């Protein structure tokens, strides 16, 4: 079974987010960019499937700017077998990415598609579901456990109030939540090996898809800051404040 994993290049999660003074967006110039953390979990899960003998090949795909090749190399270093970049200089929104992934998934005839549940930049949480919908596949979002048995996927999902388990016909789309696994550290030998793996670049125009952005960002601002309150002396003073000032108890 071939596994397709989608990854996105985003602002590194440790970098402080700075809004541009002209309110046009978040400043991404000269800051560290990394693989979206949820996508890293998705790649790790695919590698574990292969190590368990359940997957034959892992194809990792990204859609975006040319520098996304670095993100794909990281995925190859974790253990993906080959990479595809669908290169685009125009902004790609989730619907556009889903259409691109559909194209790749159909061409590659994959058995399962694993993505991160959301990207930590736009926080959309859409691409996996949209892809499943476009391809008429079943889906399991927010996965915390994935098992493949008798050509079905059994996925435990994190839902409001607890967990639920679904059984999916393959091919299917699974989106990774935080607790699906802990991605391995990338070793130097694996980084070297990754450099020799195949990385194909396709121009998005060659796919002939409608990828026009549907949603226009008018402005981006910093959130209103919450002002710090007062430090109280002890529990009794706290209760007094909550009862008589805030009136919440």
């Amino acid at each position, binding site marked *: 079974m071939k596994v397709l994993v989608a990854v996105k290049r985003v602002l590194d999660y440790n970098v402080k*987010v700075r809004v541009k003074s002209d309110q046009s967006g978040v400043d991404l110039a000269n800051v560290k960019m990394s693989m979206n953390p949820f996508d890293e979990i998705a790649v790790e899960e695919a590698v574990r499937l292969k190590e368990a003998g359940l997957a034959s090949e892992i194809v990792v795909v990204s859609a975006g700017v040319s520098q996304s090749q670095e993100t794909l190399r990281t995925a190859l270093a974790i253990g993906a077998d080959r990479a595809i970049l669908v290169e685009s200089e125009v902004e790609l929104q*989730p*619907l556009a990415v*889903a259409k691109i992934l559909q194209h790749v998934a159909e061409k590659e005839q994959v058995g399962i598609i694993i993505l991160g549940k959301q990207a930590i930049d736009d926080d959309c949480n859409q691409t996996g579901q949209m892809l499943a919908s476009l391809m008429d596949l079943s889906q*399991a979002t927010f996965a915390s456990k994935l098992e493949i048995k008798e050509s079905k996927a059994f996925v435990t999902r994190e839902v409001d109030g607890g967990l639920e*388990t679904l059984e999916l016909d393959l091919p299917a789309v699974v989106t990774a939540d*935080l607790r699906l696994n802990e991605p391995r550290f990338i070793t130097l030998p694996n980084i070297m090996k990754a450099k020799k793996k195949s990385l194909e670049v396709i121009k998005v125009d060659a796919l002939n898809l409608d990828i026009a952005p549907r949603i226009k960002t*008018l402005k981006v*601002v910093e959130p209103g800051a919450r002002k710090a309150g007062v430090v109280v002396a002890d529990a009794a003073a706290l209760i007094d404040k909550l009862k008589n000032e805030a009136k919440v108890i």
Partner: protein
Amino acid sequence: MAALIIAEHDNVTLKSSTLSAVTAASLCATEVDVLVVGFNVDTVVSQATLISNVRKVIQIDSPHLADHLAEPLALQILNVANGYTHLLAPSTANGKNVMPRVAAKLNVGQISDITKVETPDIFERPIYAGNAIATVQSNDNVKVITVRVTGFDPSPSVGGAASIEKKDAVQGARKSAFVSRDLTQSDRPELTAAKRVVSGGRGLGSGEKYQEIIVPLADKIGAALGASRAAVDAGYVPNDYQVGQTGKIVAPELYVAVAISGAIQHLAGMKDSKVIVAINKDPEAPIFSVADYGLVADLFAAVPELTQAI
């Protein structure tokens, strides 16, 4: 213009997140309808008819819709979507699961997690874990939206008199099946809907201490239980206790953070609470920068004292 809301429920009770979605929808459209999809949902439907500002409740009832799986649910939504300018669902696990499926089939973008409606096609939504707020405009003919529940006051759950329209369920190819559910059993208010929340962090040191220190305080003030990601990762409490960017987003009237330092991703999940209390022994902890009332103290002494004195 008319908006359709996909109701959040468990086949028995309508969840209050639906009421917040109604408020958001009434800012988008003059007519608001509610769609209840499930199995044996008569009581949910009658609860929905009482919501203020709702014109009509559409009921689609079928055994294969009992578990709210995304594939059949999306089919039902698409079957009744015609004529609506806005399709909205609360940003719950279910809403987030199904709405992008609907948007993709309609070939439109989705506006996720809106916190404000400026005009029927301009919305505010947090990005970068709430570190920036984007104002976005959708030019699609149908707006598919998920609503961040903490951004909108719930519409009153009484006083309405909506009509009921029953529709037959659409059958689709069965590609997934429900296996099991393991929900945390609790008599407490649900975390995202609670008026009061008490959360514990890693400073507690163990799951036993969480039970010993946090639970009695929550019991005393009738609060839901929460936790930081560090406390969840350390195994003190189950995953669904987690408050933060990757966990639950809460905005209760009172949020008490005990032994939580206040990592940015935790703050993203609770900073819209009305009153925040922080109890921590480290006076430099970032949680104090958002707290209305801070208590710098040894929690093992201060919290039981607080519990007893309230």
